[in-house]
């Protein structure tokens, strides 16, 4: 996590706001910021120690990820970073402050007083405290989540070993895809097509199970995908 402190030319490019540098910085640090925001942290407010238990909704996490990096990539923040202290600490401080601002506006997440003192660990080490979901989900939500998880498990159980491997490669990201494609004896294009095929099958399964409704233009597209899938299976 010392990318910017070790690579001075990258640091200069970051300060200038070069797109390639920002992309590299984003790709390098985004997982760490996400882990921090999902894990949560404690802080003091008006003499009370509070625990932020982490963003449980992916959409909220997405909002805060965007806001953190937008702030860190703003001209002022780029110039303000000293290039000496770990950039992770800089990013996590931004994420933390934005989350606390949000708390002060009482917008969304659930906070609660805790017995211990505030945790100001932003040394670039761990991503904050281990968090539990903030508040129990509604019974309806729980039921839906269970149903969906079961459906996804059922889908996964039906995949052959090759497709499971393809999926794993997909989730592990672009970088691993080159090596994995070679290992699977596929071109990257073939690998992408295989990923698309599996994802489409899952979408259809979710629709068939009633988890997602379809219609209009989307329905036509999905029917087209289903036809293509059928043709592919026949040709195979």
């Amino acid at each position: 996590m010392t990318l910017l402190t070790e690579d001075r030319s990258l640091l200069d490019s970051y300060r200038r706001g070069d797109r390639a540098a920002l992309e590299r910085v984003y790709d390098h640090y985004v997982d760490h910021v996400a882990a921090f925001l999902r894990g949560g942290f404690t802080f003091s407010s008006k003499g009370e120690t509070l625990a932020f238990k982490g963003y449980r909704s992916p959409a909220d996490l997405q909002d805060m990820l965007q806001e953190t990096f937008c702030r860190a990539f703003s001209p002022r923040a780029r110039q303000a970073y000293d290039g000496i202290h770990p950039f992770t600490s800089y990013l996590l401080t931004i994420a933390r402050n934005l989350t606390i601002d949000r708390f002060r506006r009482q917008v969304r997440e659930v906070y609660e007083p805790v017995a211990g003192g505030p945790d100001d660990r932003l040394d670039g080490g761990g991503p904050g405290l281990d968090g539990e979901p903030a508040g129990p989900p509604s019974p309806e939500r729980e039921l839906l989540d269970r149903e969906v998880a079961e459906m996804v498990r059922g889908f996964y159980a039906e995949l052959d070993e090759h497709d499971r491997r393809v999926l794993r490669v997909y989730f592990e990201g672009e970088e691993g895809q080159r090596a994995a494609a070679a290992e699977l004896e596929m071109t990257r294009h073939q690998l992408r097509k295989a990923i698309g095929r599996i994802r489409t099958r899952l979408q259809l399964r979710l629709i068939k199970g009633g988890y997602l409704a379809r219609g209009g233009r989307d329905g036509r597209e999905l029917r087209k995908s289903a036809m293509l899938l059928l043709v592919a299976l026949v040709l195979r």
Partner: protein
Amino acid sequence: MMTSNEQQPRGSDHRRSLAQLRKATLGRASHRELVQLARHLKWCGLCRETYDRQVEVDRELARLSGAEVELVPLERALARATVLDAAAEVPGGRRWRLWVGLSVAATLALLLLLLWPVLLRDDDGPPDGRRPPEFALRGADAVALRLYCIDPGAPTGGRFRPASADGGALGCRLGESLKVTYLNAAAKPRYRYLWVVGLDEELEVKWYYPTPGARSGVAIKETRELVPLPDMIRLEVNHRPGLVRVFGVFSSSRIDAERIRRALERIRSERRPLAKIRALPLGVEARQVVVDLRIIGERR
């Protein structure tokens, strides 16, 4: 109340965003589509729920496949596109764009004025509600009220912010405005009218939609998409910090203002705490939805 047409969610935006979400899930969305989708997700409650579910599905699939990842590709790509798009905006470019934007806005305003009678027609799909939903959640087969705070100072263009969600303790600041949207997807009975009123902790009544002088509730259409009610409610007018319980009364037949007023008066006379008021005692068949809104600000 103040009017702001440009901030109302439009059906076409909504449909486009759900299609974009599906493309993004399949890894086929372009950079521009991802940026548009992220903007839409800022304020669209239904799309946020769909996004949440999609990410949960992907996380489960990633876990099953043994991939140890903090973010699934959909999450990563969406944030990446938005962040890089925002970073590409240079101050000079912004100023130039502001001028272009203002010129375009002025031209559009003129056009809007000329085309106003044509635009007033409701052509947002067949009136009988036959238009099938696109990628809608199964749980959306219901009625609901969703509230949004309009925050002019929010970063990354997020002016709309959900003020309410199922089981969430959310809120708006006193300086913000409130946007009310409804979902009317109940198959039976079919609801055609809606009243939206509120009670604060002092049991002071807030007439949101329509005004108390109206003869009946607002006419609503059947839809699986969130539909915004007109105008916005400025919270610094007639509101104070604290909780407001908002009641949405969906009915098949007209309910007149007098009946609503009587129900509210009865509640006020009983002086029950706000938390214990679950519905308005209307005495007629209606489906009532309750949403709590916390208004944040300094008490005077």
